[in-house]
């Protein structure tokens, strides 16, 4: 599988007098996958996205986009990518349709954005001025804007932030559909639920440095406990026991409970992405 993006020792600072916001960052993002960049506020997530989407060019190190130096790409690069910013980025006095029509005309190809507006629940508000939209509506419009040109690589900054669960579900479904079409998706977020559900691979960053890169599944194995917790009733009295997951099928105590007691709950003690986030990023955040 080829890489959509490869970052080699990338460093960046906004001003030569100021400290680095990104320092010696190394990342490899496989084509056709969803990559999550995770970290606390101010970690450098948005700056990394801005560098990769060529909004910021004065970086040190090397970035390769499908094997070619990112700096060698001209404006045609933007035909290939779609960027969803965290903050609203639309003309408030124009309607959603007017906004999207303006941006769509700048591209060689574009999707049926009206249909996508309907899908994300903005069909009825499509002719309303964006300034009258709620935060969630603006976030959904940002998402549509990111997909407007049917991009091969999609950058999404906090795509479900401010959305209610049902709208967040729609957005996540669309993201997974885009991945199924072979698109590469780069998400920066601090919402671990989204990460677990969407990402094939994640990188934790803090203070501009990559702390850990892996898949959510492998991270859970690394940071979690391979244990099983059983809550059961012994008569009327509740009890709780924990057993190692390895050899659980031959564990006599566990089998006894399973056969003879009334089980209330049974859980594997794998850790959550929230816990991993705290473990990996926590100490760096405080220092």
């Amino acid at each position: 599988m080829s890489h959509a993006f490869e970052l080699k020792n990338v460093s960046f600072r906004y001003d030569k007098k100021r400290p680095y916001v990104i320092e010696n960052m190394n990342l490899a993002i496989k084509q056709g996958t969803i990559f999550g960049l995770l970290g606390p506020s101010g970690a450098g997530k948005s700056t990394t996205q801005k560098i990769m989407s060529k909004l910021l060019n004065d970086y040190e190190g090397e970035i390769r986009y499908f094997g070619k130096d990112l700096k060698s790409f001209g404006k045609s690069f933007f035909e290939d990518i779609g960027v969803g910013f965290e903050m609203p980025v639309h003309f408030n006095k124009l309607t959603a349709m007017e906004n999207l029509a303006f941006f769509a005309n700048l591209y060689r190809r574009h999707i049926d954005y009206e249909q996508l507006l309907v899908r994300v629940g903005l069909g009825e508000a499509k002719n309303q001025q964006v300034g009258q939209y709620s935060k969630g509506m603006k976030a959904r419009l940002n998402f549509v804007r990111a997909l407007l040109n049917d991009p091969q690589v999609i950058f999404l900054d906090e795509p479900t932030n401010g959305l209610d669960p049902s709208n967040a579900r729609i957005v996540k479904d669309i993201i997974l559909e885009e991945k199924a079409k072979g698109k590469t998706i780069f998400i920066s977020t601090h919402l671990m639920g989204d990460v677990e559900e969407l990402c094939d691979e994640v990188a934790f960053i803090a203070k501009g440095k990559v702390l850990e890169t892996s898949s959510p599944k492998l991270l859970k194995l690394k940071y979690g406990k391979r244990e099983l917790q059983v809550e059961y009733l012994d008569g009327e009295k509740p009890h709780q026991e924990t057993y190692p997951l390895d050899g659980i099928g031959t564990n006599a105590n566990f089998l006894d409970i399973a056969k003879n007691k009334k089980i209330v709950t049974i859980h594997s003690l794998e850790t959550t992405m929230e816990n991993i986030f705290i473990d990996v990023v926590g100490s760096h955040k405080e220092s």
Partner: protein
Amino acid sequence: MKTVWLLLKGEINRLFKYKILWFGIAVSMIWVLVLALSNKAEATALMPLLLVTDTGLMSIILLASSFYYEKQEGSIKTLFVAPISLTQLLTAKVISSLLSGIISMVLIGLGMLIVHGVFINYALALIYVILSTLAHVALGFVLVFYSPDFMSFLMKYMGLAIFLMVPMLLVLTDVIPADLEILALLSPTYATKFLVESLFVAKDWWVILFGVFDMVIIPGLLYPLVIYPKFKQYAVKG
């Protein structure tokens, strides 16, 4: 070219939607009314000053309003991830900023013709208006880049406006004698007044040429050396 046209259409559409251009037109209409209420001699003396205000000082305010709106909305950021070049974007912005001055010139010119029967060389007037707007808008861009918000911009703008108007006052009060008037032409605001006056009163051709040169050199230096390199950096920041 198609992209510049699309961007320009978008800019003009937004200038109307955000009522920025309507504001400019309303101000020009007030000037027309002032000229209509003046006698022919007063109107002829006033017209250059009014055009200076509209194509010079007002164009800076209109540019800044549009820029800070876009900055506040974040919409300028999303333009930089679209397949357009910085040159195309700047070209559309600069051309759209000319519109207010041109409308003002047409309204004021028509007012002078209808009310006072004063006919001017409109082609030359158009060239002067374009040069004046280009020079002042270039200064406006620089001011915007060094002002984090509109309030801070307004403070600096007041300073700039006074600085640009000082040569006019010095000439009017004879602090700068008539034979050294050429020095006052270094101010694009004074140069605009001088060039518009030359449409009514005969002036030395070489002084006119100096005024034109001044208004060409200011944008000629500022656009490639300051505005082009700073524009994206400022728009993307924050």
